[in-house]
């Protein structure tokens, strides 16, 4: 593990160096919020961001991604379209790092998704640890995703005047070696790193709070018991089926596939776009049957997929607690409330027994 110290005043210099060599995605301001998008000027980078509207992981899984190029008259001319370009994600929060780790597993699971993997390949991930939660509606403390122990190449730990830069992977070392002039010249870290981390973490413990009444490990079981409960009808009545919660989620990866034909009616692309399981037609089949026609069923599916099915099938939860879905829901539907309601229902049931 290499360690450096980077004064805040030097961030722009570093960025300038990097931008000359790499495509960099990072947090920047948009209106009153932040987006995680390509950075074109050093000043755009806003490491003081709370959260981004769309999560960083979507750089590997962009909307309307071309999958294959085809020719209507000749199947032999079909080609897979993948997009490989070395890039840096700069300033990824731990929840989003955890989301990337999860998506890596999903897309690498055979049959692999070469489109995701190509974009993901050789991406340098520069993490940024959070000292405090980014908003009221996050579940990262309950979920333990407010920190990440892997899934990044470098980690930035904020201090009052700079960042402690921790380099953990070969890609990370490649990065600091590439900019060795910069790192060796400006930066050295002299304190004991483990003491520093201890201090950092005790500060975190003070700032983060639990939102759930029970331990997260009890959640799948509690939710399972809500399957037929009134809870979902209540939520279904509120939900507008707008799909926002899925689109902003760093761990939602459902998609739809459609063909776009060129105006010459010869060439074209098969593309995939993000889809939402809250859309009414999401589970509709050719015979017209809709397997989740009610909003209550679709809401239940979203939550169950994340908190029941994925833990059961993959061994990890499909939610990193980033809070984005809770923030965007104009109908005020919040996972925090749903989870606590589930715990409550479970408790009531147990008491009845």
């Amino acid at each position: 593990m290499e360690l450096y110290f980077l004064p805040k005043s030097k961030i722009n210099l570093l960025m300038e160096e990097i931008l000359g060599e790499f495509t960099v995605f990072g947090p920047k301001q948009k209106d009153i919020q932040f987006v995680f998008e390509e950075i074109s000027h050093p000043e755009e980078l806003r490491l003081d961001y709370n959260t981004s509207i769309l999560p960083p992981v979507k750089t590997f899984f962009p909307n309307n991604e071309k999958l294959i190029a085809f020719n209507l008259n000749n199947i032999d001319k079909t080609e897979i379209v993948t997009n490989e370009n070395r890039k840096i994600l700069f300033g990824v929060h731990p929840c989003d790092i955890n989301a990337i780790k999860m998506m890596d597993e999903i897309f690498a699971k055979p049959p692999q998704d070469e489109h995701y993997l190509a974009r993901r390949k050789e991406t340098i991930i520069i993490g940024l640890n959070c000292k405090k939660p980014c908003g009221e509606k996050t579940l990262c403390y309950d979920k333990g995703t407010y920190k990440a122990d892997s899934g990044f190449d470098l980690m930035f730990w904020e201090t009052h005047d700079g960042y402690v830069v921790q380099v953990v992977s070969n890609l990370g070392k490649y990065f600091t070696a590439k900019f060795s002039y910069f790192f060796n010249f400006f930066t050295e870290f002299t304190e004991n790193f483990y003491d520093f981390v201890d201090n950092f973490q005790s500060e975190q413990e003070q700032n983060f709070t639990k939102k759930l009444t029970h331990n997260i490990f009890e959640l799948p079981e509690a939710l399972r018991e809500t399957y037929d409960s009134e809870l979902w009808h209540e939520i279904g009545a509120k939900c507008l089926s707008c799909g926002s919660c899925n689109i902003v989620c760093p761990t939602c990866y459902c998609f739809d596939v459609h063909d776009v034909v060129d105006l010459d009616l010869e060439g074209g692309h098969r593309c995939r776009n993000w889809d939402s399981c809250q859309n009414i037609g999401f589970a509709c089949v050719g015979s017209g049957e809709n397997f989740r026609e009610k909003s209550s069923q679709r809401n239940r599916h979203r939550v169950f997929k994340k908190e029941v099915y994925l833990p059961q099938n993959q061994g990890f939860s499909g939610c990193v607690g980033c809070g984005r879905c809770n923030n965007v829901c104009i109908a005020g539907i919040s996972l925090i409330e749903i989870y606590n309601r589930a715990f409550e229902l479970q408790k009531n049931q147990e008491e009845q027994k």
Partner: protein
Amino acid sequence: MNDFVKFEMGFLPVEAKITKIIQTTAYEKIFTLKLPENKRLKYLPCQFVMVSVFGFGEAPISICSGPDDQELELCVRRVGTLTTKLHKLQVGDSFGIRGPYGNGFPTEVLQGKDLLFVAGGLGLAPLRSLIRYVFKHRENFGRFTLLYGAKKTQDRLFVDEIELWENSNEVDFYQTVDVSDEKWEGNVGLITSLFKFVEPKPEKTIGVIVGPPVMYKFVIREMLKKQIPVPQIFMSLERRMRCGLGKCGHCQMNGIYVCQEGPVFNYNEVKDLKEAL
């Protein structure tokens, strides 16, 4: 004998050339296909391929030929964008396929058993693959009963083969239509009405069900009434699919991706899945 191959290269289809088309009903056509370099597709009964025509999209279609058959056949019902286009194609035209996908039927469980197959409507297409497998290896199985139900007489698929089955000693074949016409002399009523003709030996019988979503609940009930044990009932389910690769999420029923873990399920696996049946 030609090479057996699979075409599992992500979203990339290969060319399948149409060598024969049979209009089996007003809505269904059977396509016989030739693969590049005369390769043969390696597949199990009840597996499916993703079929595509560029510009018209892609959809899962079951393979209706048997795994040992020389020819690859698909039976396609005209319902929407892609299938309507497929119906307009001629012999000599081609479209894209990739696959096979899905788990296919675990044929080993059938060995030495009595078989009770129940097909409703288009469900006969995927089941036909298994039927042909059974005929090919007929000596390995006990009694073979096949029940088939269609909405109307003219909706029945594979009528030529039905005639053979009707006259064959190798299979006890019963069929029914929901609505009859003047010429029809057979049974009239829902598929469940055929169960009065069968008396399976429950412990020795494997039940297989393929049909429209509404059918499963009722047929399973009949099978259970005949004492067929839960682990001996199998079925193939249909869901919306966009990738066939276990990613797009459309085919998910509760925690299961039908395209990867299905479409064939043991009743045991799905009886507690609330979204399954």
